[in-house]
């Protein structure tokens, strides 16, 4: 039996995921020895037709990063699902929708008109907007049509495993892959490289009493570097965010933004954080409750920074 066949694909992502796969320093070389990369747009020559030509299930593990934003993404997701034994949603975008998923709070129409008509530097008297197919004098040019909303991978195909993070921790990801290759298969749907507990568990900051009077925005205070952000009134997604990142951001002096997604057993990361936050604020009248709610500047954007398309509501409802 030959080396296990690995494929990597990026859909709507920034490329950070691919970089994370590569940026594991010198280890990369030896790891690459153990596998055969059969498909990797950013790294290798490929043609979609090559993939289509592969027998079904011929790819052992496919790392799929990026959300599903256009028809090409969706097509590739279905194709790779068919061709792969194990399909892994790699990184926050494929797993949860990611930051790009914030676009789901707006409609496609709004995106277009803002970007191509209303931005102050744009000069577009004919109101030109990109089209799926455009006749130019030499022939026809095609652009893959965008979907109305961005979807996480598991909304269009069945996903075997997830690797969280924006970006994921490359070393851990490879360890997980090696384990899979060795045949150590956790239950379907497992979130690999992640802790059972949330970021608080690995956060070095001292936690005393989770009671706050009001919120502070990060630019308003110089937080005590030893103390829990939340207890200082600074929103930190740590409590509602699955661990496994080794609390990198917190160690860099800034609160957790939630890129590892919800805790196990939690369906909706944002709702959980909302509830936790509203629970620790000391409120003594209905007025104070209202005032507190007002003081949370951007609930959706804060609580769902990375997970909006996989939240219960997924997108703007109306």
């Amino acid at each position: 039996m030959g080396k296990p066949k690995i494929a990597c694909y990026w859909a709507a992502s920034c490329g950070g995921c691919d970089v994370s796969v590569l940026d594991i320093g010198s280890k990369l070389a030896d790891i690459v020895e153990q596998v055969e990369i059969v498909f990797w747009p950013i790294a290798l020559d490929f043609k979609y037709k090559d993939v289509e030509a592969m027998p079904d299930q011929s790819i052992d593990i496919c790392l799929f990063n990026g959300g599903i934003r256009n028809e090409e993404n969706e097509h590739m997701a279905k194709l790779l699902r068919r061709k792969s034994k194990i399909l892994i949603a790699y990184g926050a975008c494929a797993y949860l929708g990611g930051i790009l998923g914030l676009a789901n709070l707006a409609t496609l129409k709004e995106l277009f008109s803002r970007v191509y008509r209303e931005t102050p530097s744009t000069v577009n008297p004919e109101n030109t907007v990109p089209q799926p197919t455009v006749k130019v004098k030499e022939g026809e040019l095609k652009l893959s049509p965008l979907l109305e909303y961005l979807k996480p991978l598991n909304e269009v195909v069945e996903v075997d495993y997830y690797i969280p993070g924006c970006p994921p921790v490359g070393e851990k990801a490879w360890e997980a892959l090696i384990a899979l290759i060795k045949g150590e298969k956790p239950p379907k749907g497992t979130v690999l490289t992640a802790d059972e507990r949330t970021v608080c568990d690995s956060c070095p900051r001292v936690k005393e009493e989770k009671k706050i009077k009001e919120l502070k925005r990060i630019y308003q205070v110089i937080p005590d570097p030893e103390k829990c952000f939340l207890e200082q009134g600074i929103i930190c997604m740590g409590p509602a965010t699955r661990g496994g990142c080794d609390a990198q951001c917190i160690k860099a002096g800034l609160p957790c933004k939630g890129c590892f997604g919800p805790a196990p057993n939690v369906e909706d990361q944002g709702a959980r954080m909302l509830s936790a936050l509203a629970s620790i604020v000391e409120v003594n009248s209905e007025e104070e409750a209202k005032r507190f709610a007002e003081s949370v500047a951007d609930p959706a954007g804060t609580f769902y920074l990375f997970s909006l398309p996989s939240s219960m509501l997924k997108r703007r409802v109306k």
Partner: protein
Amino acid sequence: MGLKEISIEPITRLEGHGKITIFLDEEGDVKNAYFQFPELRGFERFCEGRQPELMPDITSRICGVCPVAHHMASTKALDDLFGLEPTSVARKIRELMYYAFYIADHSTIFYVLSAPDFVVGPQAPPAERNIVGLLRRVGAETGRYILQQRINAYKIMAIIGCKKGHPTFGIPGGVGKPLTEEERAKIEQLAKEAVEFGKFTVKLFKDVVVGNPEYLNLVKSETYYLKTYYMGLVDGKGQLNIYDGNIRVVTPSGKFFAEFPVHEYLNHIAEHVEPWSYMKFPYLKKIGWKGFVDGEDCGIYRVGPLARFNVADGIPTSEAHTAYEEMFDTLGGKPVHYTLAYHWARVIEILYAAEKMLELAQDPEITNPDVRRTADKPAREEGIGVVEAPRGVLIHHYWTDKNALLRKVNLIVATVNNNAAMNMSIRKAAKSTIRKGKVSEGLLNMVEMAFRAYDPCIACGTHVLGEKSRIPVEIYDRGGRLIRKL
């Protein structure tokens, strides 16, 4: 014989996967070539309503390859918005981070992506024309050295507090955490190595490329010549500065055209929209959009390493400046219009960044704990930040409302500035390389080289694993039926 269409896809993205489509006429000569970006994210829209202080994190997701550039431009826009000049040490830490990032980014682009074309040869079989082939030529020893230096740069970034991948350290008026003495010492030692590495790289380029008449001709050939305006940041003394400064523009003939603080960018930069690409086409507002033509009368300009060199009067670090002078001497003075010279400028910038890095690592103030400032609310309604991303001028512009939430966002992204120029370079390269329908791998690589020089934010990892490193080519007839496959 019918009109043929060659489509080269995908080219990795800034936003979305790049795609080149080349149309041949009846004779099989190139009629036109298009460079498309087939994805849209809509940051300008979905950042509305967000908290500005999250923008350094949000916008770094525009590109996972050069996130630090966006993170930095965004952080600077916040400084402006909140009216918080970063503390002197905070600014130095940011710059330190930024130079490290430059070394990581530039060295990857050069060694992994560009150098193979020269060291191994532009027309060499793709199986060899890649990092592996390159390492084989320079020898395993040197190879490991090169890879190690790249890793060192990432180490420095990690020390400063940047989360691996997407950074998290910038806040209005400061950075997340100060540097400890022991961290500084580590950085200083790595910086010393980096300076040597910079010299090594510049020398390598000179030996391999400049020293080889064939390559030098290639660089100077019409194929890679494009006569445009140039735009870049310069400091108060007109010297190269990648972190801050005024935006200077020079004409195709190298004459001073404009120099302005970033706050005036809207008077100078406008963006044109084409229906066949999701990426817009910036141009000089005062000259106007005249279509895809070069020269004095068209507003198309270029940014990036070569542009920075063309607009600056010099480089503020000695070693790099010498190399800078030498480059212009060799290529016949300013401005240099040879697209491939981007590579040369890029390697010199590695040396420049390394020298600056060492300078800062030895600055006694760098471990000062005073790295943060505070503000109760935004000081003004708008904030603008600019940096030189490795790929060129990058501008973030935010407007906030009474709740200190973003109400409007405008982004002028480095690679986008070069969008029009890239299209023209590709067309030109295609026209001069593909004739009578004859398309060889080598020839297509020559086309690729045209945009690779700009390094359109092609994910830094590109080609790293490449056993075969070229972009696929499929030739279709009018009906779109595949008639030839290389």
